[in-house]
């Protein structure tokens, strides 16, 4: 499992770092997130309804932030149980690198994901593609939200 990508944003690093730590921002970015509540500085409770093809499973679990290095990046890890369907977890190493002239910042991420139980048996041939798609959804909508906010009114 090796999913990587990066985005260049015309924003200062601090702005993006603030968004990465804003649960409202994260909630809107996590695909099919139904609930996200902050438990502590580094932990959030989450409920996600994942729909892939014929499968439709509600995962309840947590999102934790670790390796926190403000404002350069962190590791965001989500893990959840989907009842009888199994369990899924994934983590993304997020890095922010500002350009020398501070006019833009590059957000890069590296994802690893694991699934267990029935969902793994049935979906094994699709795990890589699904993890990639979910990562693109998450970072894609995160970046889009930032860009939209930055548009002149």
């Amino acid at each position, binding site marked *: 499992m090796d999913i990587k990508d990066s985005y260049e944003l015309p924003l200062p690093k601090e702005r993006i770092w603030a968004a990465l730590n804003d649960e409202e921002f994260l909630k809107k970015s996590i695909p099919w997130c139904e609930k996200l509540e902050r438990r502590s500085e580094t932990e959030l409770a989450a409920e996600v309804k994942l729909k*892939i*093809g*014929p*499968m*439709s*499973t509600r995962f309840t679990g947590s999102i934790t932030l670790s390796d926190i290095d403000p404002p350069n990046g962190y590791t965001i890890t989500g893990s959840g149980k989907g*009842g*009888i*369907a199994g369990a899924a977890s994934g983590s993304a190493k997020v890095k922010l690198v500002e350009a020398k002239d501070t006019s833009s910042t590059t957000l890069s991420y590296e994802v690893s994901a694991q699934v267990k139980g*029935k*969902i793994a048996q*049935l979906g*094994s*041939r*699709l*795990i*890589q*593609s*699904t993890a*990639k*798609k979910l990562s693109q959804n998450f970072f894609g909508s995160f970046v889009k939200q930032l860009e939209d906010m930055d548009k002149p009114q």
Partner: protein
Amino acid sequence: MYSTKYVKPNSTTEALEAIKSLSEGKFLAGGMTLIPTLKQRLASPDGLVDISGCKLDSIADEGETLKIGAMARHISVAESAVVKMAIPALAKLADGIGDRQVRNRGTLGGSVANNDPSACYPSAVLALKATVHTSNRSLAADDFFTGMFETALEEDEIIESISFLKPTKANYVKFPNPASRYAMVGVFVAQFGDEVRVAVTGAGEGGVFRHQEMESALSSNFSADSLSSVNIVSDGLISDLHASAEYRANLIKEMTKRAVA
């Protein structure tokens, strides 16, 4: 255990009403994907609307097109004299789906609506410039498939039939997974006069797709030799325990060569 409702309406109008009365209802066609999913508890809809009673299984030659009802079983398409005469490659494709049990139950509409990235039918729909007729509109194949397991269909929309444009010639060749017979790579090539369309299934992370480079190579020279110089990139191809993306890239070219040979 959990309870779920089962209804079997006699028309698509009734089926659409039935789905509206459910909060998370699902249409049931042949059930070859949905039923195993339910058995595994990977989905738990509050109701199933079986559309097998909606009279959607006709097969008709309409001159320039071949119109097949969404509930036509794979076996019916494979054995239909009308299909064999109009588009033999389509009958061949249907005859190679899954095993006998799956072919007896599985349907054209179910396969296309599910848009499994390894299903055979979506490649035929895309290569044969098909039009998907739903309960409220008609969609061109190029606009229908939108990603892995994703289509332009709304939750409360039913495919009623699909019209395939008759090609000058066409062929479908797949490299089946030996256990499931799903396409590890399947290629549908269709020639319409000077135009050639090549649709690839089983390989793309975003589901079925057309291969432009091979299409233009085959448009200028419809032969296996013309494909030798085409470079198939492995970016965006599925990599799983059955085959790497690079292996699939090689299979795409090989299957296409066999299809035009």
